[in-house]
């Protein structure tokens, strides 16, 4: 009631304006996503004619049928899943191995070690020297070139270290009195207590690996190793649906229309896994960003 009485005229105007701006922005984000969904199940002729706006027209699942009957998409999916899983393991294990010791105030040389990691946030060798390194390690055209170079970064280490620092020192002292060694302590106490931060690390690695295509673009030219994103690039950007998708269509015009339909479907197929998962995982992400923003 107190609030109601106090409501100023200008505040009501503000609330209305706020509603309009945020509503408009939300719609601007949402509509393109929604449109892709309805376009992917509409007859391409209706899309060409400009009849699809709010609802799908002349519903057809032809696009999806073509996409799923094609091997390359499945290979890309399988590869990307594998890369993402591998990257998640490598990334989270190495990050914890670096972050935990750095969180310990009794670690002699702690600042020097910290410097080794932090410097890489400001300096890097750049594309060409990194490429030459990967080449010299004979990793070109192997899964390692896709997974290893970007697996661990200093940002993740800082996030994890900040989290470990929040664990109470008394816990370790008590364990030490009971004769618990450092490694044992990490394995049976720190890791179980750190599930939220490990979830953040895994998510960051999975999203980065699933969505990334640069490493695969420069290091891999064997198409059986292509991650999904590289196959998508051929279809979406370079306009080349793989052979099986268009074989039964004779005229060029029809081919072009079906290609458009395939594009809509492929966008859904590629974006769906993360888009359906993220509302569930959102809080971990938000937590990750926030822990990371605390001065380390």
């Amino acid at each position, binding site marked *: 009631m107190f609030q109601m009485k106090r409501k100023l005229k*200008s505040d009501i105007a*503000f*609330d209305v304006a*706020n509603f309009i701006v*945020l509503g408009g*922005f*939300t719609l601007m*984000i*949402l509509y393109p*996503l929604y449109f*892709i969904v309805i376009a992917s199940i509409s007859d391409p002729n209706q899309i*060409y004619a*400009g009849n699809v706006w709010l609802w799908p027209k002349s519903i057809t699942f032809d696009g999806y049928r073509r996409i799923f009957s094609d091997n390359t998409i499945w290979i890309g999916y399988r590869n990307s899943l594998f890369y993402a899983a591998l990257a998640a393991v490598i990334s989270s294990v*190495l*990050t914890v*191995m670096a972050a935990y*010791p750095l969180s310990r105030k*009794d*670690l*002699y040389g702690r600042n020097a070690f910290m410097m*080794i*990691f932090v410097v890489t946030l*400001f*300096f*890097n*060798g*750049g*594309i*060409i*020297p*990194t*490429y*030459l*390194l990967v*080449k010299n390690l004979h990793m070109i055209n192997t899964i390692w070139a896709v997974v290893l170079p970007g*697996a*661990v970064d*200093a940002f993740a280490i800082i996030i994890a270290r900040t989290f470990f620092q929040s664990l109470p020192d008394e816990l370790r002292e008590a364990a030490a009195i009971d004769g618990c060694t*450092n490694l044992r302590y990490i394995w049976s106490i720190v890791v179980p207590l750190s599930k939220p931060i490990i979830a953040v690390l895994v998510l960051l690695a999975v999203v980065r690996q699933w*969505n*990334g*295509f*640069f490493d695969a673009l420069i290091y891999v030219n064997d198409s059986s190793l292509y991650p999904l*994103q590289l196959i*998508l690039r051929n*279809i*979406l*950007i370079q306009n080349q649906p793989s052979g099986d998708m268009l074989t039964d269509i004779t005229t060029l015009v029809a081919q072009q*229309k079906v290609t*458009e339909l395939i*594009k809509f479907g492929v*966008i859904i197929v590629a*974006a769906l896994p*993360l888009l359906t998962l*993220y509302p569930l995982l959102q809080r971990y*992400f*938000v937590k990750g*960003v*926030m822990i990371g*923003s605390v001065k380390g």
Partner: protein
Amino acid sequence: MRKLKAARKNWELYLLLILPVAYFIIFRYVPMYGVQIAFKDFTPRAGIWGSPWVGFQYFREFFESYNFWTIIKNTVLLSLLNLLISFPIPVIIAILLNQLAREKLKKFVQTVIYAPYFISTVVLAGMIIVFLSPNSGLINHLIGAFGGEPVLFMSEAGWFRPIYILSTVWQETGFATIIYLAALAGIDPHLHEAAVVDGANKWQRIRHIDLTGILPTITVLFILAVGNLMNVGFEKAFLLQTDLNIDASEIISTYVYKIGIQRAQYSFSAAIGLFNAAINLVLLLIVNRTAKKISGNGLF
């Protein structure tokens, strides 16, 4: 002696550090060492160490190349416009979101605007291309509905920058609000209560309490953004690049890729990359210093 003893007691921690440190030395420091090929006439046969020094020859070649100014102009313009437009929007959206009284509505808006962050650059570029397609695209249908002629968005250099910047706003605004929302949540609610009692309206409270409260956060993020100014994303520029919009879309990173990876002129493109990194570093130092002088807080 005591320190040595302490170090020995924690030998397991050093054991743990070996692998990550080795990883960073191999994958981060070896490429830094490799940067010297920018000053050498690198041939794979002779290797980094064995190739002869040529000093600034490749830098000079780049400065004198006919497209030097175009590339620099494109990179600077694209990143500057991108910064000017896509940096303030998350601040505004976060402040507006913070003013939403209904918790459920706020959660809903947040969930929606975070979503594009989880879409890959390839998919985003694909979406842009289908939406802007001259004969089947949504935008051109809309233009057509108002009686306009279809626009060839992807093949006109003039459209490249607006497309790039608008899509960045679409994809990154939501996620970028997280930090500001966290900072806003940290503002003491008593300040707002006191201001209400004094008769301040929402607009005044935003200006004097919210904005002032999150200014340190804004400064730090702004410094970071300027330090990355010349690093406008390779991926999106590369994916949206066509032969017809190349006049606006060729930026340093795409050029380095073409010269270095596709044409294998390692030393030349390493020199270009190093030049880019040097500008970034200088920018970072200048802005950090200025910010420290003006507002008293900086990165270092």
